[in-house]
């Protein structure tokens, strides 16, 4: 079968539905598109005339900006909608908001929402391509893609590597997407965290579950640190921030438990000095800054390949 040149689905709602070939395609395309940032004119006309809407129900400057830059570098037009909680209270349903956007003939909707499954609902009801920028605790596919890209770029390959994620796995959509993505590409994924923030049921989803940090880090090629959300303490899920950091914070000493040269990654934003020590965040093996740059290239690739898919379907006379 010929290698794909587009994404099969209209939307990118998660890593789960992507095939290994499609993931490969996204990473390869991102590699080419990363060059655009180095041109004197940081733009190619590939998505000229297309409109992308950032529909963010949860605040996020970094992800939103990353998508915006990705679109703009492909010459698409961007509209940002930051839906405050109050307008949801005012009564406009998600579906109505979406239908309004559709009426304005929008091509791409990038959506971040606090409810798992919200982008899926939108995608079912719209012609536009929906990209999930994070839905509840479910998935954050472009984060996982840029994580894959970063590991591939820095370590040469993903297959056979061991990736250890540390932190509040239970509530993390990044952890879920990374588990699926890295496993699909042949890596081994370990989860590590306190029992109330990491259910043993994750083993049924394919992760190696650890509650001891040393065991989790031994032999790891990548240390992936998740952000600690202080609300979890208030919800009674952890006794105190100190109790967490004592056992799970990534300090320079603990980095040594992993393989020499192990990458340190973080989806951002970081709580410096809490889940990750300053020296580690800025250390020689930290690729946190690269993740940000790679995020734009990966998101450009996603937009480009979704657009290819739309073009092909339109040419085939299908429903568009």
């Amino acid at each position, binding site marked *: 079968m010929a290698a794909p040149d587009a994404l099969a689905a209209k939307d990118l709602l998660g890593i789960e539905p992507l095939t290994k070939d499609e993931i490969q395609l996204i990473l390869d395309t991102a590699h080419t598109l990363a060059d655009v940032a180095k041109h004197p004119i940081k733009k190619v006309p590939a998505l000229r005339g297309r409109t992308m809407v950032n529909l963010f129900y949860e605040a996020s400057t970094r992800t939103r900006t990353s998508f915006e830059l990705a679109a703009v570098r492909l010459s698409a037009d961007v509209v940002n909608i930051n839906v405050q909680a109050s307008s949801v209270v005012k009564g406009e349903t998600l*579906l109505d908001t979406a239908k309004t956007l559709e009426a304005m003939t929008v091509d791409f909707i990038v959506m971040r929402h606090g409810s*798992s499954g*919200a982008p899926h609902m939108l995608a079912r009801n719209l012609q536009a391509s929906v990209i999930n920028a994070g839905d509840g605790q479910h998935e954050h596919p472009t984060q996982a893609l840029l994580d894959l890209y970063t590991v591939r770029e820095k370590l040469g390959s993903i297959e056979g590597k061991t990736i250890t994620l540390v932190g509040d796995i239970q509530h993390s959509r990044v952890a879920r997407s990374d588990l699926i993505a890295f496993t699909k590409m042949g890596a081994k994924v370990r989860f590590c965290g306190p029992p109330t923030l990491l259910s043993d049921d994750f083993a049924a989803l394919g992760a190696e579950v650890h509650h001891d940090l040393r065991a989790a880090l031994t032999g790891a090629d990548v240390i992936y640190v998740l952000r600690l959300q202080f609300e979890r303490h208030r919800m009674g899920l952890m006794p105190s921030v100190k109790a967490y950091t004592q056992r799970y914070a990534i300090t320079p000493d603990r980095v040594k438990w992993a393989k020499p040269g192990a990458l340190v990654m973080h989806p951002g934003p970081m709580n410096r000095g809490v889940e990750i020590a300053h020296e580690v965040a800025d250390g020689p093996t930290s690729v946190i800054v690269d993740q940000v740059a790679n995020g734009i290239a990966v998101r450009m690739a996603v937009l480009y390949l979704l657009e290819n898919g739309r073009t092909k379907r339109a040419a085939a006379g299908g429903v568009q």
Partner: protein
Amino acid sequence: MNVLIRGGRVLDPASGTDGVQDVLITEGKVAKVGVGIESGDATVIEAKGLIVAPGFVDLHVHLREPGQEGKETIATGTRAAAKGGMTAVVAMPNTVPPLDTPAMIAYVLSRVAQDAVVRVWPAGCISHERKGEVMADLAGLKEAGAVAFSDDGNSVMNALLARRAMINTSLLNVPYVEHAEDEDLVDGGVMHEGRVSLKLGLAGRTTLAEDIIVARDLLLAEATGAHLHVAHVTSKRSLEMIREAKARKVPVTCEATPHHLVLTDEAVGEFDTAAKVLPPLRSEEHRQALIAAVKDGTVDAIVSDHAPHGPLEKEVEFAQAASGMVGLETMLGLVLEILVRPGVIDLAGLVRLMSTNPARLFHLPGGTLAPGSPGDVTVFDPDAAWTVDPRALASKSKNTPFAGRSMRGRAVHVIVGGRPVVRDCGLV
């Protein structure tokens, strides 16, 4: 009205009848069951090749009137019930306002008298306003016509209230129906807590929530002698406890729904709100335990828990969506599919679960075709093929996860009090 149902296989476990016979109904009551009955001036309903059973009684239905008539009314809900083969339903009291006073029961009964096409027996609330704080006037509710008590939709969380209520229901000889789900333990969950909820990033409801309330209520029922009826049981452990309590003669009964017998938490799929229900669809392990519990008689009745919701409640984010599915019209077909055809129970078993037992346990007339009983008959074809088309449902709401499903088995004729309400699968 006089009706002769001719030539069908009469299946009435209550009177031990199983054979091709005729059933004559005069003046709204079963007059005679036998072979070769003369029709006289009775309307003849040919039932050759069909099963003739005492009318089905659905112990758990939400008719939404008063207060949510946009979703369903007594008129539309009872029509849906009739099409599904029911001749009687027990209406749950979580209406708006709830049925927590004799006046509200009287109101519902007056609406039933005007609009219902099948019998409707109202249940009354256990607590005032269903808040779980102050006990409602249970004796008054029974006097007004309530046949059961339930705060369904919520568990009675206060054990003292539950105990006192059971002391009363025991005296009143009325079932205490518990929706067993500890409100704290469910922790805002929106589906079964398990591998699927973890994968989908949705908050889960642990089966422990059901088990804890069931365990508590079993102890209370044993102590008070109240008839505890566990609504829509789903948990393997709860079934074990109920089975064990029954063996010790604790006065407990329980009911199961077709959707919990047919579907698992996988039905949520890509966040399909049609599969969102309380208690939630469980994992395969629990579903199998439920089927086994039906087989060994631990489960006493099958009910629909018919819960209509409109697009406003369902076409939203999964976590925001209302829980519940319509079920009156798919119940028979699903029970045949999941229990009868695979041999878990036979047709007599089906009649026991959908008519004999429900009537008997809630002290309702019917559930048998013995002469003198109400002329409530369900004539059904266990093999009739049809497809679930939401637009064709008699229910006002169309929220079902079974849309498009091929079914085998449907009610053909339904007679209530000697009056045909459904003829040839259609409403009269």
